[in-house]
């Protein structure tokens, strides 16, 4: 049996009372009983997400971002053409905007650029800051009607840029998507879209009929911040550890917990700084402070991992706020980052995103920056990502990305995933979505643990998704 002095009071913890020191300390570890847990085979296919010495020579930050877009365009152009022939007209050939006569119907391929007024902008922030104490000016221009800032879309092929109109909506696409447009140039610098296509989708492996009778667990967004971590979150974590290691009070629960073969921690284990505030800070950036380092938070995560790996295989993804370069694709943590749990062979270090095959099923797991940047609904966002055939189309525009010189590893070119899991979502959501030619994908949005105190369970056999809540309320 398990015993935790903090839990003796009937009805759980009284959180309003003096803060109860729930450390993830050794007392618990000793209480975890050894249970047998099966393992299943897996293969990590994420090598292309690793930064090679060629990607990151010493002067790699003298680069700009345009090579990434060019590489993306090169990688997807033929696949867009393929789809255009398939869905619009097999006789179409790709034309360049500059060669088009007016009103000539043609297929063009290029990158979408949404020009949105509300896009966060350092420049705008600085301007606002500078004008904060500008003297009141009677001649200041009133609202001019000729000067309307409306959101619109632009499209860039190899050499030219046009504005878009016609049969394409701002919500249909994201900045950075590579698409094919069929239509004509009108009004000189507008391209009127009649039909448009995504790149063709990579092939999907057969989903095995016989699937392992196990469960996988996903957790994300612990958002630990050392001493400032909410007591509730700490308590919920305690419960989680106890439950997952088979210390359930009921046998049924223990059994359920022991069916879990892998636990994925999908990023933001450490609380990330407020991005909006940070943007503003960067704009005013009066001082170059040494950034605040939260050693406590890291220790807590380390402790958590070291406990978990005693009873379950843990897969760790870096996310926003974690000690890994925040540019996508995020690199695996070095093992030395975690003194206690880092050396365990039951801990796997992953890239973010991570392309991994577990028990014959192709997973794409991410810590979610790429997803939440597109929509608050993970299902909607992932659906768009899969259509785009790019794991993070808005990277590097609004999601930080590494300045690659000659490749864009985030282009989806290996296989179409069976399951996409995105961490740190504003809500739990899951749905099976159908795609071209019978492809289908289960999209799973994993909410932040710090907000919901729950983890997401995925039954590999039935592909059912459920939430397990840990809390006292």
């Amino acid at each position: 049996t398990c015993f935790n002095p903090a839990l003796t009071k009937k009805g759980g913890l009284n959180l309003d009372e003096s803060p109860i020191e729930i450390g993830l300390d050794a007392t618990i570890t000793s209480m975890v009983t050894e249970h047998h847990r099966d393992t299943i085979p897996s293969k990590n296919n994420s090598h292309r997400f690793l930064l090679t010495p060629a990607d990151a020579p010493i002067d790699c930050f003298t680069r700009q971002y345009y090579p990434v877009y060019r590489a993306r365009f090169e990688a997807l152009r033929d696949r867009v053409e393929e789809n255009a022939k398939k869905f619009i007209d097999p006789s179409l050939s790709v034309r360049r905007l500059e060669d088009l006569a007016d009103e000539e119907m043609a297929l063009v391929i290029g990158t979408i650029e949404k020009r949105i007024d509300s896009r966060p902008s350092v420049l705008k922030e600085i301007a606002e800051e500078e004008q904060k104490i500008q003297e009141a000016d009677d001649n200041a221009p009133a609202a001019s009607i000729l000067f309307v800032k409306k959101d619109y879309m632009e499209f860039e092929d190899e050499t030219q840029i046009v504005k878009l109109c016609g049969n394409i909506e701002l919500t249909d696409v994201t900045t950075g998507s590579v698409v094919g447009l069929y239509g004509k140039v009108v009004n000189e610098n507008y391209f009127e879209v009649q039909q448009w296509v995504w790149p063709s989708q990579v092939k999907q492996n057969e989903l095995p009929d016989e699937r392992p009778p196990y469960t996988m667990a996903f957790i994300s967004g612990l958002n630990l911040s050392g001493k400032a971590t909410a007591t509730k979150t700490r308590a919920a974590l305690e419960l989680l550890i106890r439950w997952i290691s088979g210390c359930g009070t009921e046998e049924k629960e223990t059994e359920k917990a022991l069916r879990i073969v892998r636990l994925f921690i999908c990023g933001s284990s450490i609380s990330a700084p407020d991005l909006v505030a940070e943007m503003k800070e960067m704009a005013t950036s009066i001082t170059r402070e040494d950034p605040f380092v939260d050693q406590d938070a890291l220790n807590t995560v380390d402790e958590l991992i070291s406990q978990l790996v005693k009873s379950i295989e843990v897969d760790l993804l870096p996310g926003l706020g974690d000690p890994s370069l925040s540019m996508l694709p995020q690199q695996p943590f070095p093992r030395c980052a975690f003194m206690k749990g880092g050396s365990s062979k039951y801990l796997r270090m992953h890239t973010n995103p991570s392309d991994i095959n577990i028990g014959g099923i192709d997973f794409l797991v991410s810590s979610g920056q790429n997803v939440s940047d597109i929509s608050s609904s993970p299902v909607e966002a992932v659906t768009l990502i899969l259509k785009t055939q790019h794991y993070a189309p808005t990277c590097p525009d609004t999601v930080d990305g590494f300045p690659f010189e000659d490749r864009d590893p985030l282009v989806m070119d290996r296989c179409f995933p069976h399951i996409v899991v995105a961490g740190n979502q504003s809500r739990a959501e899951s749905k099976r979505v159908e795609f071209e030619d019978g492809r289908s994908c289960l999209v799973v949005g994993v909410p932040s643990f710090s907000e919901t105190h729950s983890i997401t369970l995925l039954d590999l056999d039935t592909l059912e998704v459920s939430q397990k809540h840990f809390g006292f309320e």
Partner: protein
Amino acid sequence: MSQTGKRASTAAESEAAAKRRKDDEEPKKSAYESQLEKLAESASESNSTVTDESNWERPPFDQDLGTKRPVAMQVLDVETYVDSGKGYDRTNVKLYGITKEGVSVCCIVTDYFPYFYFQTAQRNLNNLLAGAIRRIGSGGQHMSTEVTDNLVHLKIVQGRNLYYYRGTEAKQMFIKVSGTQPTLNKAKQVGTLFEANIDADVKFMAHTGVVGCGWVEVPIKKGHVVPPRSATSRCQIEVTCNYKDLIVHSLDGEWVDIAPLRTLSFDIECLGRRGVFPDPTHDSVIQISNMVKLQGQSEPFIRNCFVLGTCAGVVGSHIIECKTEQELLEKWAAFVRTVDPDILTGYNILNFDLPYILDRAKILRLPIVSMLGRQKDRASGVRDASLSSKQMGSRVNKSIDIHGRVIFDVLQVVLRDYKLRSYTLNSVAYHFLSEQKEDVEHSTIPDLQNGDDQSRRRLAIYCMKDSTLPLRLLDKLMSIVNYVEMARVTGVPLNFLLTRGQQIKILSMMIRRCRKEGFFLPVIEVNAGDDSSYEGATVIDPLRGFYNEPIATLDFASLYPSIMIAHNLCYTTLMKGPQGEEGTDYIRTPAGNFFCTKERRRGLLPLILEDLLAARKKAKNDLKKEKDEFKKMVYNGRQLALKVSANSVYGFTGATVGKLPCLEISSSVTAFGRQMIDLTKKTVEETYKRGYMDGKCPSDAVVVYGDTDSVMVKFGVKTVAEAMEIGQHAATEVSKQFVAPIRLEFEKVYYPYLLINKKRYAGLYFTRPDKHDKMDCKGLETVRRDNCPLVANVLGTCLEKLLVDRNADGAMTYAKKVIADLLCNKIDISLLIISKELTKSSDKYHAKQAHVELAARMKKRDPGSAPRLGDRVPYVIVAAAKNVPAYEKAEDPGYNDIPIDTHHYLTNQLAKPLARIFEPILGDRAEKILIEGDHTRTRQLKTSKVGGLAMFTKKTTKCLGCKSVMKADEQEEAVCAYCRPKVAEVHLNRVTTLNATSRRFGRLWTECQNCAKTMHEKVNCSARDCPIFYRREKVRGEMREAFSAVMRFGQPTLDD
């Protein structure tokens, strides 16, 4: 539906458009948005391609115009010229304008003769006249009387001198001299002259009632259409008309509208040599980009670029390849003549682009290139024109006459109307549009030009951006509409508003009114050395302090105009001494001058001012009632113009080097103003004693400050609502003391209010009791250019903490922290950049100046990227040895890793402005606390990594944890053996720094990619003016350092 919309579609429906018209009729929409769309549609429909020349020409016009239909046009430009021929010389007037349909018209107004008046002491005027005529006759013996009559015509007229009330309304005898302008100039040596010093075109307009940008009409049968072959202008239609037949429309109803003016914005690129400012004698013009837009539309309908050499196409723009520079310039000039723009704009075209093209044309001997105007036989030339104005100081501009077109340089507009830190196109665009433009370095232009057709395409795109931005600025600032309205209100032609000073506007209004009332304006001899001054406005001594309570503000509405109206102050009412009864016949002003009462004679200035104020009231009303967005803009521009004009009348009378100075008026005005402010203070303090208003006044009111036309009162109340109630009450009560229309108004409450000194204060501005409108600051040096941005940022945040958060301690703590950070070298270098314009080369400056010396040094390092004349030189002050003179301490912010002179920034930049805002709270010790407090104890000096001893230091691998030198066998490790147990901690430190840095890297570089508005092309921007330029360059180095440190923890690997 707006008038403009109708116009555009009518234009579109003209013949050419009709031909192209597609089967599908456009759906009828009424909403404003579809209106704009429709405008764009109709424009594009009539010219379905901008990628060729088919839409350059103005749409053809109705052939009945001038014969069966009257020609009604909006007057854009006016010029007088001597027409020699047909037996005798005449001075004719040409009016250039545009009809509602967008047809360009040149109207030659005939039979008008310029004139002036003179007065002589001679009694028998008739004899005098006869003698004069005889003398003229003997000069030209063989001329007919008709000719002599027209050359110089003398006539006796009745009128009154504008100056002085002489106790009677009786008119006096004047001699009117009229004739052609050249003969008039010769005739000016007689007697006391009146109106001989006023421009002929201004007088013509006053005489006929034509106003700048107003509508005139040539009725059918009265006008005569000149056949195209014998036309003198390049306008679509030329008509002649006797000046008496010209109909002038008042600016109401359908004549409120603005014609669909064609605005051409252009920009040139020159092939400069390294480090030298382009010189037309050597450097050729390689590109000229053009954008042509119709007034009322939001997008240009012609977008093109003339390029030298081959150039890849740009979708949506017309690229015109030229083999030689000669071809380029000639094609461009032909383009201008074909497009026939009404307004030429761009950024600094007046002083750079246009003169450059014209000079280049002279050097290459291409006379046709200078034929840019609407006069067939007149080339455009450049000369220097100096303009001195009280408001702007004196400056020398180029003066270019492009007959019939208005040069509307956006730089000139911004210089006149806005006070900014910097006037480069980039920073102006940033200020008003929150946008930057990609700025190519001068030195890269030859590379791009000498590259291939793709690199020239890139250049063409930059060039076209530079001609697009001025149009966007004009739209955003509503400059064209506002200037059109100013021209209408004051009556002067549009181009006067940018080329002339303030006075001409008032003079134009004066002369119109004088003509109506029979007054003549004497020619006043101006003594340049005479700068007699008078006492200005009063400033009540401020009771300095930080008021954490509501302070009500009482303002006199239109103070000076209403004083002049109330007391009947005018040239025509001024008296040389008292006459009759004081009070009934005359008043004595507090300045000791005498003016007659309005019962004796109503002054002209008061009449003009009353009209202006009434017109403004009407314009504001019309603005409120108007639904049409375009007309709203017009009414708004009108009310602004009326306000500005009313307020400048006073200044006109006080301008000693002006046309009609009258210090008796201006000194009386200010004297009344001072008296009123003092009276207000006295009344408020005496009336609003404790317990007044049924106990609503909790304590005696105190006037804490007052300036010119406002007083700030502390009523001692606790809430904004109470302050508003009492303030309102006081405004009404005190107003009763003054003669109408002088009125005290209650406008706003400051709460809290930081009163620093005379003309310097800040406060939260309330016009409603619940929420403040804004933070209002006066006189704080935030826009001063020799301040670095840090000053403005710190002041802004401190004021915000002080006023909005009401946290004085927080503000002080913040200020101290910034100072501590500054001394520890933690301030971002981009906030320390100071910039000054390089106006002349270094040998022409008397004393050595920091930015000039720096520019010279930069030129030695790299002549290509060094600042050139006219550029702003950004620099930081660096630490140097004690005896190094100040001018050697400036350095290029991008130059290596330079040690900042933090002390200089503290004492010369931050200390004074900060001390000033803290003085009301801390007293005189504020500055001492700020620059000598405990927070200044820790200092960190950065040593330069270049030069000096730096070159002897050897690079060794150090432990990332303790910075000790690593042993030989540890070279590949991140930390030394001692630090190994805490390697996770060291890693976390490093990676946290890396993440903060990478976030900056990502945000800054994607911002630039976004600003360049391309994703597939490299950002080639070198805009040193841009606030993120140095940040973005610097973050690369920081990133390299942070990244390589983290990589020492091991190349990332994957687990299966």
